[in-house]
């Protein structure tokens, strides 16, 4: 064990020593314990170099212990279940886990890119804006090289094997953060009867209490946490979410939480959920996310072995790992003294606490000195030695001047420098919610100020640093949330803690002076991951990028995966110094979600793959599938495209289906058409305003074709309508337009014409529609048995009647979208499969052919009927389509006024025409552009909207929109073809077949 984990302390920590876990790092076998993070296990194993910085490729070690970690960015797992870019500090160790460093080639330890560090000065902030411009065409070559070094981890190599889900929930109080303050707030709210959700990003509740030596109510802090959690678990309506990061605070108190349910690489069986997205609507929110420690900006402050002081404490106390044998602690505030005490307690040597404050620390300083730790007050660490690991620190007297040069007078050997530059409350969610931030000059941090939504901050996130204050503040926040809910706050007392150590106040130290000035000294890092240095910020300001947003964008400060959790405040403070402004004058930036990165998968939830979008199917769909019909996607619908027999391809099948309809009998499932029942005393008046034709003239039992323009005059939808009663109509719409048309009508009815009494009811799903078309369709119906006469005198074209067909009640329409004798059978969808089967049986003697959307399109094209959305595109009026005859002159209708605008009256508008390729055999591709002549620079005058080979005509036909087309019938224009000569095309009438419409009247 000692060999595998040389830095593991013999006792202590919250790890389970009885459960050793084997894992690998960069291919090397390693070992840790249950309860470890990958970071603590690596540290226990003596791994100090875990990655390379992004630009300069400097060797880097672990800096932090949580979400702020900028360096230890890992690739976890392999193949499709790989997970890129996890900070080792946030990976719970699992047996068999494989981890790889993500920067450095061939390895993090030996990286040939480290050459960048040598040329670093050339690669200052914004260098790429200033070069790579010659020769002009070479940027792509430069970029190719730049891209080679892009990114950290690798995307998985296949579809995600894991499951994700959403959970929509509501609560009275959401508490974000389960440390001392969060637990108290949750306890207060839950005991007062509120529905509470408590979420914490760590796998255990307690936050910093898990690494604390303090006692609460007379028991160790961790025991108090366990008792509190147990009590909360016992309360009704209190949901505890560990491993759950509240990453987004959106409008209207909607928050999003990402919960890790399985290990980092997911579950082995596909059934369990890897991550869950909680979508929470909270009436009140308590933000208790704690605070983030800041590093200090001294030379070479990025060397492996330079760590946050609080992280040092966490590794020692929580994970029983010793991050170094001989440490220098460097601070400008009291909190780092705890790290020194922890280290000393764990048997490490603390060479010195270097405290920039002339007065040094408070009571903790006394305690440290009692342990024999020397305190160098009024000193700073100005530089560290060592490349792959810190080997020593140079210490200088601090005069209070950040920008002058200092000479270091002391050099100490050490392998660890624990730093603390003070604390920044995690105000991210407060800011995301629109809350204001206010700079606190005594605490040297931004504190949450006025909230814009229903939230209150508590604990360290509210600038309360000591345990006693945190507990009390949590209680206060919980009570405040409860009282805002109008509930009575349960009587809860703040727990007793050992009295807080008296602290000396923090003093500013934003840049540590060095032996040379800030531009010439060794690098002082502000943003570790992006290699942003103090000199970079100075350079940006020098070049005029003075707004904090410009500086951030020019230097990439805060754009790393840690999103500036370590560096942003330090960067702003340095900028303020450079500009001679105060930090609040420089301002802060608005935080946006996510607080920490969240997977695409968890945001997507269940709605991926087959559940990505609902598939709508008709009642007869199973029959179509069994018949082997390929499907066409039309909006959400799946419709049979064609019904191949004996290995036919699309063209053969469609030709056969078309001929069947023209010569005998075809049947098609038209159930996807929209259907609306419209009834009421004002229904005629209402429909007169919606449709263009004279609705009132329709007699009961009659059908009419109608078009619906938008108020801009452009065609919106079309369909057949039937007058089924004096005050009742049955309206049909296109498949894609069903919902939109109903919405359109309801909107006018409800918002503009509420005085009209009309009820609209969607019948789209209730009725299935089966179109039987062809000369034998009447005989089919007769054979099926119909209780009404079907002859043309008593059931003429464009009429509707209720009937009983094959023993089933139907609404029978004598309409035709093919130009043949045809009937559309509207039937309760429950009976539709049975009716379809009977039709197929009865139709066998006529060699009935089921047909799909493609044949339907060809048949209607032969007849010159439009398909809205294919032959129209939102810029086509009914006039353009040659539907003048449909436009009533006697009434107003929606869109009519727009048709009188000058552009709509132009003679050369694109008009709908038929087109014939002059060679008699080319089927023009749909979307072909038409040009006036066959010259090279010819202007476009239209395009082909529909084009097919017509089996019954024996040649191709096409429909299209051509400028002034209706007056140009007989003219030859040209179809432009890519890479080939334009093809001559003749403009003809759009009706190719049975132009006088005799066949549908038989």
């Amino acid at each position, binding site marked *: 064990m000692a060999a595998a984990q040389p830095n593991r302390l013999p006792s202590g920590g919250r790890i389970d020593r009885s459960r050793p876990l084997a894992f690998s790092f960069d291919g090397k076998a390693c070992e840790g314990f249950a309860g470890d993070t990958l970071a603590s296990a690596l540290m226990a194993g003596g791994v100090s170099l875990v990655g390379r910085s*992004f630009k300069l490729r400097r060797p880097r070690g672990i800096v932090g212990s949580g979400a702020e970690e900028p360096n230890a960015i890992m690739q976890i797992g392999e193949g*499709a*279940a790989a*997970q890129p*870019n996890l900070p080792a500090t946030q990976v719970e160790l699992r047996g068999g886990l494989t981890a790889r460093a993500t920067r450095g080639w061939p390895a993090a330890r030996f990286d040939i890119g480290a050459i960048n560090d040598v040329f670093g*000065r*050339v690669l200052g902030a914004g260098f*790429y*804006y200033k*070069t790579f*411009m*010659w020769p*002009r065409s070479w*940027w*792509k070559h430069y*970029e190719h090289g730049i891209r080679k070094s*892009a*990114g950290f*981890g690798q*995307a*998985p190599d*296949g*579809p*995600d094997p*894991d499951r994700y889900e959403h959970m929509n929930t509501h609560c009275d109080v959401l508490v974000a953060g389960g440390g001392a303050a969060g637990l108290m707030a949750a306890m207060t709210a839950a005991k007062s009867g509120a529905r509470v959700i408590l979420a914490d990003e760590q796998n255990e509740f307690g936050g910093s209490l898990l690494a604390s030596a303090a006692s609460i109510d007379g028991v160790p802090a961790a025991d108090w946490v366990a008792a509190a959690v147990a009590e909360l678990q016992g309360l009704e309506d209190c949901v505890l979410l560990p491993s759950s990061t509240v990453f987004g605070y*959106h*409008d209207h108190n909607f928050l999003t939480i990402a919960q890790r349910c399985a290990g980092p690489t997911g579950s082995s069986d596909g059934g369990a959920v890897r991550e869950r997205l909680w979508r929470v609507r909270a009436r009140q929110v308590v933000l208790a996310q704690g605070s983030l420690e800041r590093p200090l900006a001294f030379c070479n402050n990025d060397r492996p072995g330079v760590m946050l002081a609080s992280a040092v404490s966490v590794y020692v106390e929580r994970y029983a790992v010793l991050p170094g044998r001989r440490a220098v602690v460097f601070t400008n505030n009291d909190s780092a003294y705890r790290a020194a005490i922890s280290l000393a307690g764990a048997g490490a040597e603390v060479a010195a606490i270097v405290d920039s404050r002339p007065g040094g620390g408070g009571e903790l300083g006394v305690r440290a000195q009692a342990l024999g730790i020397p305190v160098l007050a009024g000193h700073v660490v100005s530089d560290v030695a060592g490349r792959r690991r810190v080997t020593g620190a140079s210490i200088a007297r601090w005069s209070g001047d950040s920008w002058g040069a200092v000479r270091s007078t002391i050099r100490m050997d050490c392998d660890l420098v624990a730093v603390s530059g003070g604390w920044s409350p995690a105000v991210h969610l407060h800011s995301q919610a629109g809350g204001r931030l206010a700079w606190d000059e005594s605490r040297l941090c931004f504190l949450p100020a006025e909230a814009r939504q229903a939230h209150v901050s508590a604990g360290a996130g509210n600038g309360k640093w000591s345990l006693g204050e945190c507990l009390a503040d949590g209680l206060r926040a919980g009570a405040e949330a409860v009282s805002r809910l109008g509930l009575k706050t349960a009587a809860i007392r703040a727990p007793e803690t050992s009295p807080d150590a008296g602290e000396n106040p923090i003093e500013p130290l934003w840049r540590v002076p060095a032996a040379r000035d800030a*531009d*010439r000294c060794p690098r002082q890092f502000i943003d570790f991951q992006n290699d942003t240095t103090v*000199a970079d910020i100075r350079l940006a300001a*020098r070049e005029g*990028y003075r*707004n904090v*947003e410009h500086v951030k964008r*020019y230097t990439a400060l805060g754009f790393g995966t840690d999103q500036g959790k370590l560096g942003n405040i330090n960067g702003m403070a340095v900028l303020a110094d450079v500009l001679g402004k105060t930090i609040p004058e420089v301002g802060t930036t608005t935080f*946006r979600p*996510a607080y920490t*990165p*969240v*997977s*695409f*998968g968890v945001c*997507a*939830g269940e709605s991926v793959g087959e559940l*990505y*979008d609902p598939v709508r199917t008709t009642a007869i769909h199973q029959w179509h599938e069994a018949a082997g019909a390929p499907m066409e*996607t039309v909006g959400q619908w799946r419709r049979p495209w064609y019904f191949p027999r004996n290995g036919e391809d699309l063209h053969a099948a469609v030709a056969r289906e078309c001929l069947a309809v023209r010569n005998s009998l075809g049947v098609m499932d038209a159930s996807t058409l929209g259907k609306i029942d419209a009834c009421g005393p004002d229904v005629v008046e209402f429909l007169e305003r919606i449709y263009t034709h004279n609705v009132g003239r329709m007699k009961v039992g009659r059908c009419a074709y109608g078009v619906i323009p938008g108020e801009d005059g*452009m065609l919106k939808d079309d369909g057949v309508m039937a007058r089924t009663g004096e005050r009742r109509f049955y309206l049909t719409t296109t498949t894609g337009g069903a919902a939109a048309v109903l919405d359109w009508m309801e909107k006018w009815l409800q918002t503009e014409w509420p005085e009209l009494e009309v009820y609209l009811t969607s019948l789209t799903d209730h009725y299935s529609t089966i179109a039987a078309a062809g000369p034998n369709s009447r005989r089919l119906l007769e054979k099926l048995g119909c209780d009404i006469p079907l002859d043309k005198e008593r059931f003429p074209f464009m009429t509707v009647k209720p009937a009983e067909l094959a023993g089933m009640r139907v609404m029978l329409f004598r309409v035709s979208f093919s130009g043949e004798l045809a009937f559309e059978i509207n039937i309760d969808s429950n009976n539709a499969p049975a009716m379809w089967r009977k039709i197929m049986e009865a139709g066998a003697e006529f060699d009935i052919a089921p047909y799909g959307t493609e044949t339907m399109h060809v048949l209607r094209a032969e007849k010159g009927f439009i398909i809205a959305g294919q032959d129209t595109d*939102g*810029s086509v009026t009914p006039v353009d389509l040659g539907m003048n005859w449909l436009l009533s002159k006697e009434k107003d209708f929606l869109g009519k006024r*727009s048709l009188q*605008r*000058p552009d709509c009256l132009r003679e050369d508008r694109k008009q709908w025409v038929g087109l014939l390729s002059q060679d008699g055999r080319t089927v023009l591709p*749909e*979307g072909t*552009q038409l040009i006036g002549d066959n010259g090279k620079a010819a202007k*476009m005058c239209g395009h082909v*909207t529909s084009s097919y080979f017509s089996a019954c005509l024996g040649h191709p036909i096409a429909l299209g929109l051509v400028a002034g087309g209706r007056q140009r019938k007989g003219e030859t224009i040209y179809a*432009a073809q*890519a890479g080939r000569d334009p093809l001559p095309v003749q403009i003809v009438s759009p009706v190719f077949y049975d132009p006088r419409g005799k066949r549908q009247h038989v």
Partner: protein
Amino acid sequence: MKRYSGLALLRNALDYNRNWPPAWRSPEPKKSYDAIIVGGGGHGLATAYYLAREHGFGNVAVLEKGWIGGGNTGRNTSIVRSNYLWTEASLLYEKSLKLWEGLSRELNYNVMFSQRGVYNLGHSLQDMRDIERRVNANRLNGIDAEVLGPAEIQKAIPCINTSPGARYPILGASLQRRGGVARHDAVAWGFARAADALGVDIIERCEVTSIEVRAGRAVGVATTRGAIAADRIGVVVAGNAGVLAGMAGLRLPIESHPLQAFVSEPIRPVLDTVVMSGAVHGYISQSDKGELVVGAGIDAYNGYGQRGSFPVIEHAMQAIIELFPAFSRVRMLRMWGGIVDICPDACPIVSKTPVEGLYFNCGWGTGGFKATPGSGWVFAHTLANDRPHDLNAPFSLDRFASGALIDEHGAAAVAH
């Protein structure tokens, strides 16, 4: 202007980068200018640059209420293409694309315009008809365009899912090879630096509070930094056009909506081009740093909040996973919103107004970033000559009354 070059970088590095001059000055506003451009985004800065450069205007100011490039210029997904459907739109965007192609050298500022190609995917037969139509129109307008089938798409983009069993299978795509992405901030900074070098005053933290109109003519503006007189005033303020128009008593046919986007953590290069899908509402590219940059659909409601609703982001994630199943485990780093000003026909207004000497350039919707240089170029022409260039003549304010809309919406062309 001190020229940028590799040599300059070396020379300055030797001197610890202590002698780089400011990229642009921060002058005090003068009492009067020949022309004022309201709005220091990419479009405004480009307008000022081309006014000075192409039309010899020496006395021009750009007034920016915050910091330059802080609006949509810095909040987009930086896609550049010109393959629009209608001739009017495609020619305008093509002018812009041509300017993009020489922009880094023109400005002596590397805007990192990367012509890695733009794919517009088709998922239904109707999508494919629309793609054919658009590609054919583009070709006739001299714009590079081609139609690819699923196999070619799969070959060019190995990680895309062209399985026919997908919920919205990929049936094909149009490809504009000359399209690509650029570095968004650099465009604003590059134009600012080049305009500044030609004498343009770039005045930040200077908010226009009213437009002074005398006898039907705009004569100046009041600002938070004092009154400024001007011969002509060009307004280019995405997300604020209506407010500025109101100052001059004008109304605009524009509605402002949130448009959201997000980036992932940087991952190793995996996507070498731009992929857009109007049908599933998602578009994606990978930056030179390795971030996947994803654009979402437009939020339905009017909003100036620079943020939208989370379900729109969820939908975009679902769309991206539908297209690239392997990206499910990639993590979103941050999300943000811009404000898009949408015209009824999804085309911009670059136009004179009923007020003499007052010009508006607005309503770019989702097309603004790619249009930056072209928009500035035609707007400068319009200001300088008091009449539009042929390229922007169709984009007048009058078209809404005449009905001569250029309907990129209705035409089902992908709007982004």
